[in-house]
């Protein structure tokens, strides 16, 4: 089973913090992989907020291909970060040729482009690079995870703690205020780095604990919406990121409606909601995106709000807790205990059937939005 550990903080933190939290939850995962996604970057990246960062893994040949491609597109490398790989004896990690974290300047032709045009360019570039990489299924020359300003993704197969050290994150970390880490490769099927959470699309990302039983109709529905970015789906959990994107970006719904999209209320339950009529229409039209889980989804909105939401039957663990300025979203309380010592655990929130738990950038408090009546409770933190 996946183990999830996300921290949103007012200060910059090292990715080793959520990774060490994963270590405390080790009984629940098989140590088969690590997926890291970082946002609100610090250190050398703090001054590079406006430049899109490409996170990828390549072979030597793939690296050359990627360089040529980016050059041809007019992207110029602004800053290059490479992990300081440390492969100690006993590590079971198979090092790949190149791990890329490159910040680029936009092509000159896009200097006066709108934000939407720039976003479209970044997404199209990522998808094209992915397509180039997928031409060789056996030994893909390029694997690209994200291409977006202020977002870095690292993924590798192996024990999460080992992978963290392998990337040298204990000595030379990329600091960030929001870090998602997930401690498992998708071992149900053939190993494929694209199947490793978190999943990213245009500033939105999610990771999920569980099994998405309605994966096929949901995938087909997303694929049929006419958005070229709705591809991949090497993991059934990738749809959660895309549903988030669809609901926020395509439909323009406020964030908490994500809950109403994936776990709609029954017709008989909407009476206490002011927007009951809208819910009735949504439930019909978005029927194909209803999930049954069991799923605990931890996501990050494009505006930086981190949330946790459960399927209707709440068959997966999940807890949110912390102190003012630092909140953990984890699959188990022991993870928060290790990452954020000294918190008042009485204020921990275990999202249930109707809860949508949010923490906004700055991590001052925990908001619990109740789907049944549309109210929000604030859990203040000390």
């Amino acid at each position, binding site marked *: 089973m996946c183990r999830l550990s996300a921290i949103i903080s007012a200060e910059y933190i090292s990715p080793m913090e959520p990774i060490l939290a994963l270590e405390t939850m080790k009984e629940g995962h098989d140590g088969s992989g690590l997926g890291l996604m970082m946002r609100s970057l610090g250190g050398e990246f703090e001054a590079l907020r406006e430049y899109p960062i490409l996170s990828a893994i390549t072979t030597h040949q793939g690296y050359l291909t990627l360089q040529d491609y980016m050059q041809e597109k007019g992207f110029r490398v602004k800053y290059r970060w490479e992990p300081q790989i440390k492969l100690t004896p006993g590590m079971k990690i198979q090092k790949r040729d190149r791990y890329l974290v490159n910040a680029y300047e936009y092509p000159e032709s896009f200097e006066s482009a709108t934000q939407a045009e720039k976003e479209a360019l970044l997404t199209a570039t990522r998808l094209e690079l992915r397509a180039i990489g997928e031409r060789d299924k056996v030994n893909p020359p390029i694997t690209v995870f994200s291409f977006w300003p202020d977002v870095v993704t690292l993924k590798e197969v192996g024990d999460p703690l080992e992978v963290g050290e392998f990337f040298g994150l204990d000595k030379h970390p990329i600091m960030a205020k929001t870090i998602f880490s997930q401690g498992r490769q998708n071992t*149900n099927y053939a190993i494929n780095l694209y199947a490793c959470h978190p999943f990213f699309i245009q500033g939105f990302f999610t990771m999920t604990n*569980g*099994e998405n*039983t*309605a*994966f*096929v*109709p949901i995938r*087909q*529905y997303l*694929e*049929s*919406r*006419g958005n070229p970015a709705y591809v991949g789906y090497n993991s059934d959990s990738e749809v959660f990121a895309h549903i988030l994107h*669809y609901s926020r970006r*395509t*439909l*323009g*719904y*406020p964030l*908490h*409606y994500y809950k109403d999209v994936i*776990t*709609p209320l*029954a*017709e008989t339950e909407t009476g206490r909601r*002011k*927007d009951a*009529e*809208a819910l009735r*229409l*949504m439930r*019909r*039209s*978005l*029927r*194909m995106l*209803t*999930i*049954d*889980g*069991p799923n605990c989804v931890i996501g990050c909105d494009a505006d930086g709000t981190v949330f946790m939401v459960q*399927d*209707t*039957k709440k*068959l997966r663990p999940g807890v949110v807790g912390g102190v003012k300025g630092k909140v953990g979203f984890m699959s188990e309380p022991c993870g928060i205990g290790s990452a954020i010592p000294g918190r008042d655990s009485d204020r921990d929130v275990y999202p249930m059937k109707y809860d949508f738990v949010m923490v906004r950038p700055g991590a001052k408090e925990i908001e619990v939005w109740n789907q049944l009546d*549309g109210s929000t409770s604030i859990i203040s933190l000390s």
Partner: protein
Amino acid sequence: MESAGRLDVNHQLILNDLPYVITWRQDRCLRCGRCTSVCPVKAIEPGVEERRIVESAGSTPAPASIRKVVSVVKQSTIVERRCIGCATCRLVCPNDAIEPVYNPANKFFWHANRGGEPYKRGGRRNDPDVSVLDRLKFTRISMLTDPALDAARHEFRVRTLLGRNLPPEKLPLKLSGDGLIPEGMAFVPPVREIFPIRIGGMSIGALSPTMWEGLAMGIAYLNEVEKIPVVMCTGEGGMPARLLKSPFLKYFILQIASGYFGWDEIIRAIPHMQCDPAAIEIKYGQGAKPGDGGLLMASKVIGHIAKIRGVPEFVELSSPPTHQTKYSIEEAVAKMITAMSMAWGFRVPVYPKISGTKTALAVLNNLARNPFAAALGIDGEDGGTGAAYNVSLDKMGHPIASNLRECYLNLVKLGAQNELPIFAAGGVGKHGNLAANAASLIMLGASGVDSGKYVMQATAGCLGDERNRCNICNTGKCPRGITTQDPKLYRRLDPDVVAQRVVDIFLSADKELKKIFAPMGRSTELPIGMSDGLSVADQAIAERLGISYAC
């Protein structure tokens, strides 16, 4: 010397030629005459035969052989009076002395077209083999990767939507603060939330008053008491005016077919209706007899039916094979769907039902482009009917599984898989597996299914089967009183028992659907299009349906 009897009996059939041969045990028979009086086709009759018997009589009895005339039950070898295997004789026999036995080597089809008239019957395609639907298995079982749901404890929403669902991108919603509110829009299609198994169209006329009333009462009970929103279709021929004006109309789908029978009454009742019907089904075809219109024999058109349909009594009512004023799907969609929608102020879903056919996709694509088309009903070759030519029943039509799958996957390509629900029919519950067949079709892409023959068999003991047993719905001599307008026959059928059985089968199907969906981890929504849950032990079927092969 001339022979005592004629040996020239050519052109007469023998019992070996007949599909069912009566086994009669003279030692058990009481000669009460019940079987011969109840036989719907007069296949058996009282007779006498000279028999040699051994008798011992007198004060010093000694066995002696004597010849005696005894009464017997005789089976006719006239084609028109062949035994249909209904076994009503066995039903009424107090001593279990008689039963029909199927004769697989019969020659009936070589002789059924007497008078140059092809063989007509009721029922459905006579193919007793395991159907494709029954070969499908549910193989994606939650095992450790995800906890199986509990069919008895978890909350399940076994409901579907009948009506056109707007694509999310076109929903008339706008932001108000941090919430969404509807904004004015010219037309938001009407949608009904219903149970995914419906009772398919069977008309007042095809069905006896007691049968139809029993179904209707069962439907009302399911909705009002059990709160399970099961709906039923009227078939072609309308409804009694008092029902049209009743609060129960909302549980009925009014069907309009090429004969337009019953629609004068319906239109006259519109101003007096307390509620809207569940939907309007425009029947363009029937799976059982594609390309044929409805057929109601003159003998069945009795008083109340003639009144509902607005026709004289005892005239044969054969609907044309197609709506005479429409010669294309475009025209049909443009005229009929719009006209029907207008009649109820666009508050009622209106959708066409077609026979399963290779051209279903063309119909579907037209509907996908029409904002008023609420759904598409596809009735496959295993659908049933009250009256049709045997050749239509046995040889015409398209199986439902691949037809549905093709249509659903086409909607997926268009992104309209939720916009235009498909209702599949034709052999649902053919071998008694109502819920499993329904679940299979839903997972292939149907939003819901229709069932007719299963309902008749389960609620009223319809005797028909795929070995051509009974199947005389067209003659008005239904031995169970289901498809007859003869009071002597339909009084055998207690409408309250029918209603109770309707409730039984839907409560049970509801439970069985949950037992299927729970291990597959689907409860909040129907597993529409969840084809990864299905497998079949046949490579060709798996490939055609786009499901996995498992053996």
